[in-house]
């Protein structure tokens, strides 16, 4: 390519604009890399999930129930809309590893023999599937195997329904049903203490004492079947068997988490990068306007020489495009790296056969286009100016800018204010658009930091509220079936258990007009100390003596009112049906809840007594013995260690969030320095002539510095409050966009986050000013005066 003179000029001019190019490029790198990595992650996660589900026949319909005869599967298979179905047994129990004193909670799933198994197929990581043998062969989910360092051939005791036998690991596997290996009782994954196991029908049926009985059905729908109708039909068939309601993939626990993550990646691919790129557009606008202003004579000369407007605009357009590309291209590579890191993190939580990050071409192209867009957006007005410039005008000395008397002067205060202040003031407000853009840019930086910090704050708040204020117990146990008060007394007699409070929890279906919802109803005792309900203002929610307390959601979405009646179908035991009065609505933090007082609930259940959840305060010195003892009771179905959950969370999620916040702050710092530095630089070079004149007139270096500083400090001061508000607003918006239904999370931002945001801006300011200081010192007064433009 033959480079013409304009291109030579292009490269030389760009060299002059090194600093600005770099600061703008940093912004573009941030924006593009986030966009590219998120979008690629979103795409690869989605495609991996789709192919995994497809190739391993992930079911569409799930149903769990108390127990039904195995033949029921024939009825299900014949239902309209069902293509295939399998009946199996899912049983919870315990597993005794030699490496841990206390047993781990286990979910045992019946494996249909390999040649018959059609749905929810296992992917074998190592080893093989269990076969008939003298000892019980078992396949273990890789999450548990990795967390506990298990290998093929390891044996341990398994406990199901009071029966204890030895089992041997023959395979380490994963299943599309458990991409996210979650213990349904705990809100967070706990691979150490919860494992999923698969074994053949014979041993499972024997130990669970469920021969020819099934308690779980998975099914695939035929194409074009209507999900709602199919679910209804399945529910009809399973009604007499203690069915808690069939559900579709959308509500399958593991899939929900995967869906969520995919959706969030998609969202984050859009929101945060947009901020960076918008700011880059601001900067480009400022840079190009300044450039066109400074190059006025050059542009006029080019026009005089006979260059067309088009050619000249293209020349300047190329300049800013190159500035963008300097950021966009590294941004794509950085995005690749971030994507790989992201995938590694995913591999910890999501168990897919292969989760490799690959930078999709689509993402790279989107990144490139996005990287260039700020140039187009921001440069537009500068390019227009080029067109509008008449050469003659450009070569004339620019007319003195029109300064109208500002407000202060009209009010006659001018005598009180020094010349310097007046100059600063007028300069700022002379170009209101420029001022606005600078201020907006700083607001953006503030908003980004506040958003980042808020994630930390809200997670801390959530953890604190959940674990420090609501669930104040140390441990909680669930019983296999409801037990009388003497069970609580029994627990209190265990040395180390200091206090115990019992509750009753039942699965139920709430029905009101055409609305239906499956939900657990909790029956609370009269005096609650440990486990409490708090609303979003952290006030204690009083459980009404009569009637039921429901989440505010039901008032909004179902149109329920206090005093109205709602129908309730209990989904276990005698399956009673009753109607009760809405006593009040509660503004829960997370999730939906239904609460009644213990005794009224029991009355409706037509039972005399029955607790199935007990919260415990435990002496820390004895906590291990207590835990072991509790785990060994046959009537106790699960033991939850609050502290363990809490610490586990802190380790995994907490760390992740801290890293994320740090990255966001660094990016915001880039924005802040970019804007502040550029703003000061522009002021400086635009008025270097003025500065030189002032210096010659006798103003000291310090005075000149002071004036520049005052300008930028004013801009920052104007941006502080709107920026913090914008940050608050951004957090509010992102909260709204997540889980509208079950999340009424208050936006909670600590004052320290705002303080941090402002401190970061101040840091950026000091940094930029230090650089400026050097430049002011080196103004060559004589030269500056010579060059009028």
């Amino acid at each position: 390519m033959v480079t013409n003179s304009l291109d030579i000029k292009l490269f030389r001019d760009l060299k002059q604009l090194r600093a600005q190019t770099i600061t703008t490029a940093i912004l573009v790198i941030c924006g593009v890399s986030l966009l590219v990595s998120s979008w690629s992650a979103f795409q690869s996660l989605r495609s991996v999930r789709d192919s995994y589900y497809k190739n391993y026949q992930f079911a569409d319909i799930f149903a769990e129930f108390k127990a039904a005869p195995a033949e029921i599967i024939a009825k299900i298979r014949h239902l309209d809309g069902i293509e295939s179905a399998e009946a199996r047994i899912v049983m919870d129990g315990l597993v005794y590893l030699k490496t841990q004193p206390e047993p781990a909670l286990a979910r045992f799933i019946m494996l249909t023999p390999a040649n018959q198994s059609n749905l929810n197929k296992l992917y074998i990581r190592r080893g093989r599937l269990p076969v008939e043998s003298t000892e019980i062969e078992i396949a273990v989910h890789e999450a548990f195997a990795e967390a506990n360092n298990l290998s093929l051939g390891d044996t341990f005791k398994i406990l199901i329904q009071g029966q204890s036998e030895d089992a041997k690991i023959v395979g380490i596997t994963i299943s599309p049903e458990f991409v996210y290996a979650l213990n349904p009782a705990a809100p967070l994954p706990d691979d150490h203490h919860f494992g999923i196991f698969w074994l053949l029908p014979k041993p499972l049926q024997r130990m669970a004492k469920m021969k020819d009985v099934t308690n779980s059905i998975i099914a695939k729908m035929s194409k074009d079947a209507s999900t709602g109708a199919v679910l209804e039909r399945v529910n009809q068939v399973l009604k007499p068997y203690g069915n808690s309601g069939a559900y579709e993939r959308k509500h399958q626990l593991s899939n929900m988490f995967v869906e969520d993550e995919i959706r969030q990646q998609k969202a984050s691919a859009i929101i945060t990068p947009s901020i960076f790129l918008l700011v880059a557009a601001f900067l480009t606008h400022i840079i190009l306007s300044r450039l066109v202003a400074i190059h006025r004579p050059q542009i006029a000369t080019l026009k005089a020489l006979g260059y067309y407007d088009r050619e000249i605009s293209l020349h300047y357009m190329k300049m800013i495009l190159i500035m963008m590309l300097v950021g966009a291209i590294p941004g794509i590579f950085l995005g690749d790296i971030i994507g790989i890191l992201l995938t590694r993190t995913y591999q910890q939580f999501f168990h897919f056969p292969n989760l490799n990050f690959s930078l999709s071409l689509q993402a790279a192209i989107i990144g490139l286009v996005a990287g260039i867009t700020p140039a187009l957006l921001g440069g537009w007005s500068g390019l227009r100016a080029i067109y509008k410039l008449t050469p003659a005008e450009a070569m004339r000395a620019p007319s003195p800018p029109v300064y109208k008397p500002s407000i202060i002067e009209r009010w006659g205060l001018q005598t009180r204010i020094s010349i310097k202040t007046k100059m600063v003031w007028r300069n700022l407000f002379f170009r209101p658009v420029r001022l606005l853009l600078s201020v907006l840019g700083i607001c953006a930086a503030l908003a980004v930091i506040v958003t980042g910090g808020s994630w930390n704050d809200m997670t801390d708040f959530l953890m604190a509220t959940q674990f420090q204020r609501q669930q104040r117990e140390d441990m909680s146990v669930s019983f296999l079936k409801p037990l009388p008060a003497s069970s609580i007394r029994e627990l209190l007699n265990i040395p180390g258990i200091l206090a115990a409070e019992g509750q009753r929890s039942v699965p139920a279906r709430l029905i009101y007009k055409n609305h239906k919802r499956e939900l657990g109803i909790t029956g609370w005792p009269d005096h609650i100390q440990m486990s409490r309900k708090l609303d979003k203002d952290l006030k204690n929610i009083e459980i009404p003596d009569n009637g039921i307390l429901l989440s505010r959601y039901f008032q909004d979405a179902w149109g329920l009112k206090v005093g109205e009646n709602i129908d309730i179908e209990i989904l276990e035991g005698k399956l009673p049906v009753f109607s009760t009065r809405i006593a009040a609505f509660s503004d829960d933090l997370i999730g939906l809840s239904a609460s009644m007082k213990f005794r009224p609930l029991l009355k409706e259940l037509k039972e005399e007594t029955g607790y199935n959840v007990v919260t415990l305060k435990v002496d820390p010195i004895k906590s291990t013995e207590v835990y072991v003892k509790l785990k060994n009771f046959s009537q106790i179905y699960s033991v939850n260690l609050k502290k363990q959950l809490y610490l586990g969370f802190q380790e995994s999620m907490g760390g992740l969030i801290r890293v994320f916040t740090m990255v966001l702050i660094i990016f915001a710092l880039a924005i802040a320095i970019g804007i502040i530095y550029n703003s000061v630089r522009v002021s400086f070079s635009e008025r270097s002539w003025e500065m030189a004149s002032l210096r010659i007139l006798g103003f000291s270096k310090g005075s000149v510095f002071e004036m520049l500083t005052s300008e930028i400090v004013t801009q920052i001061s104007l941006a502080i409050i709107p920026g913090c508000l914008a940050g608050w607003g951004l957090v509010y918006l992102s909260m709204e966009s997540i889980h509208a239904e079950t999340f009424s999370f208050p936006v909670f931002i600590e004052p320290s986050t705002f303080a941090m945001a402002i401190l970061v801006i101040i840091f950026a300011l000091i940094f930029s000013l230090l650089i400026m200081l050097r430049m002011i010192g080196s103004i060559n007064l004589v030269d500056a005066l010579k060059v009028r433009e």
Partner: protein
Amino acid sequence: MQDNQFSEVLFSAKQLSKIYRMGEIDVHALREISLELFAGEIVVLLGPSGSGKSTLLNILGGLDNPTSGEVHYKEHNLVTATEKELTTFRREHVGFVFQFYNLIPSLTAEENVTLATEIALSPISSNLALHLVGLEDRAHHFPSQLSGGEQQRIAIARAVAKRPDILLCDEPTGALDYTTGKKVLETLLRVNSEIATLVVIITHNASIAGIADRVIKMANGRIHSVATNSKRMSVEDIQW
């Protein structure tokens, strides 16, 4: 020189007026000017500052539009020409020399000249142009490394490299010292004789008028007088 030596009319202006705004004030730069300019002649536009000389020059060069009146270059009507047509006109026919040189600071002397030759119809090589102004050994220096006089000569090289029909010079010696100024004028004369361009020189310095074929005196936006020099002086002979 006799009148009939310059017979081809390049420019003809009729009742040209130009009013422009400067801040909040209207300035009447030209008031109903009419004149004709011929190919190959040297014309000096003389007058004090504010007399409208630069404005007239700009309009002739298609850099500015008159508020009213007509101006034609040969058969082209400059008033009705579009921006693009004007640019083409400048590209193909006009060379400018400005008072403040207006060199591109990020290009070397040679590159500044090439900038013009690349878009010209039949240029001379930039080397030759530099040779013409005696600065071939400064070809790779940037404007910031050249003195005022050298910069002005580069500007001339740039203007003449295009081999334009017209050379419009706005105070070409205004910022230069005596010796350098004379050198510049010599270059202009040489160009006029070698390429037969119409050279229009704006100046407030009456002594320079001696080298011209015709002297047009302007004041307050009007043409005061048009005088013909019976004999052109050489650059050595004029003094100021």
